[in-house]
């Protein structure tokens, strides 16, 4: 017995075959050359990502010159906070060595970013200070050394 195949199906089979072949041909041309070089991604994207200007130098760059500060920090509660958390991006300073190329924040508001009283923060983890009540006429760093907060200056 001869198996009947409707003419529509024959025509559609050709259309789908053409589509699949076209897809494979296009794929051949469209897949980036460096795809799969290191993994399931375009290898050249690593070079692309390296292009943007670098702002942060990283903790090791700070330690190359300022090991003394690191030693101070290691003794107190700010030990795990990296330099650029407070001093801001440091690459410019690393390259030039100029003190003017890095931030040295000293305002009460700056310390308040972490230590200001905030009901949303978990109590007991980070010291919370009511800025409007605590020694309002002084800057925080007049008493606390930011690198060693509990080694009071007076």
């Amino acid at each position, binding site marked *: 017995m001869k198996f009947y195949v409707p*003419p529509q199906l024959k025509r*559609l089979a050709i259309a789908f075959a053409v589509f699949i072949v076209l897809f494979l041909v296009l794929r051949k041309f469209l897949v980036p050359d460096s795809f799969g070089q290191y993994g399931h991604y375009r290898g050249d994207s690593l070079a692309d990502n390296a292009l943007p200007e670098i702002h942060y130098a990283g903790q090791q760059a700070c330690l190359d010159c300022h090991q003394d500060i690191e030693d101070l920090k290691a003794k107190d509660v700010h030990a795990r906070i990296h330099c650029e958390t407070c001093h801001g991006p440091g690459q410019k300073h690393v390259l030039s060595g100029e003190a003017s190329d890095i931030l040295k*924040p000293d*305002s009460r508001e*700056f310390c308040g970013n972490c230590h200001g009283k905030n009901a*949303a*923060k978990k109590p007991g983890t980070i010291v919370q200070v009511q800025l409007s009540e605590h020694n309002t006429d002084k800057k925080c760093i007049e008493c606390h050394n930011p690198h060693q907060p509990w080694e009071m200056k007076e």
Partner: protein
Amino acid sequence: MESSYPHLYEILSHIQGYIFPNEIDLQWGILIVVYPFITGLVAGAFILASLERVFKDKVLKPTYQIALLTALSFLLVATMPLISHLAQPQRAYEIMITPHSSSAMAIFGFVYLWYLMVVLLLEIWFDYRHSMVVWAEEKKGIMKWVYRILTLGLNDISPRTVSWDRKLGYIITVVGIPSAFILHGYVGFIFGSIKANPWWSTPLMPIIFLFSAMVSGIAMVMLIYMAVSYIRTRTLDVNVLDAIGKYLFFVLILDFTIEGLDQIHRIYVAEESFETIKLLVEGKLYLTLFISQGLIGTLIPLGVLAFLQFYKGKIKLRKTLYFITGIMVLIGVYSMRWNVVIGGQLFSKSFSGFTSFKVGLIGIDGTLMAIFWLLLPFGILTFLLWLLPPWKMVPEVEE
């Protein structure tokens, strides 16, 4: 001090409480709200068309082709909000040529392709093939060739071949219903599978998305059927509206029940995220969740549709009520997409802070862009209705 960190102070003005830095800006904006809305319309419109075909609901016949062409018009645009939201849209095709099985979005590309090529296009092709062959004979000039290309050069309209069009179309419809479920269920899965987000992470998400998709698709086809009748100055058959309204009513009840169950489950379980989600829905989502989605989009339409199940009086009043209900339901489903997409990004994973979202007007990620993608399908539908007018089709011969 403020001069050193101007950007920081601007940012701090629109967050509340404690929030991680990468949560301040919403990564997914209004275009990601539009995307599940459009995809939902596709699945819903197709499912309405299938009801006519598989369950042989003769009353719905005038909406059958309109529903299919609506589904196609919206499906052709469905990926565009996603693509225009990308930072590198010109690389979007790479998701298809170098897919990775661990990427939910990459697999979605193939779910989409299956639905477009194997379900919608094939069903429409089988449905229109006979008519297109006849049109190719009748027309002259370029249109003759357009129809000839659309028939793939096959001009066999012997009764046997035409009856195979019907049989094959039926098979495609049967395959198409689960495909439509998968297409939109998958959109829900993409959100539901994000386990770090308690507002999204629920196995009910695909089902919730699916039912709201059916609600919005049915409402959209009803409105388009009304608009098409109006533009063609044909009398609108209120029996058709009653039939669509009945399906809309039942699906809306299911949608409301399932979403309600999801919320009851959330409230009773009250996981650690519950406090922050309670603040979210009572605060930033109050208008869009309770008023827009709940009241305007669900409760009032449910009441009106329930009323219309019994009320068979003034035809003009019924038509007006169906029209208004259709629009309200669409507003409700759009709000539901908003509540899921935007709501899920407003609270911090620390569960102790919120950010805020202000939608932009212009730009590639703005409101105008979203409106453009929402209006484009209507342009495509107008073209398709001109190219493939359901009212000029060769009438089916009863077997």
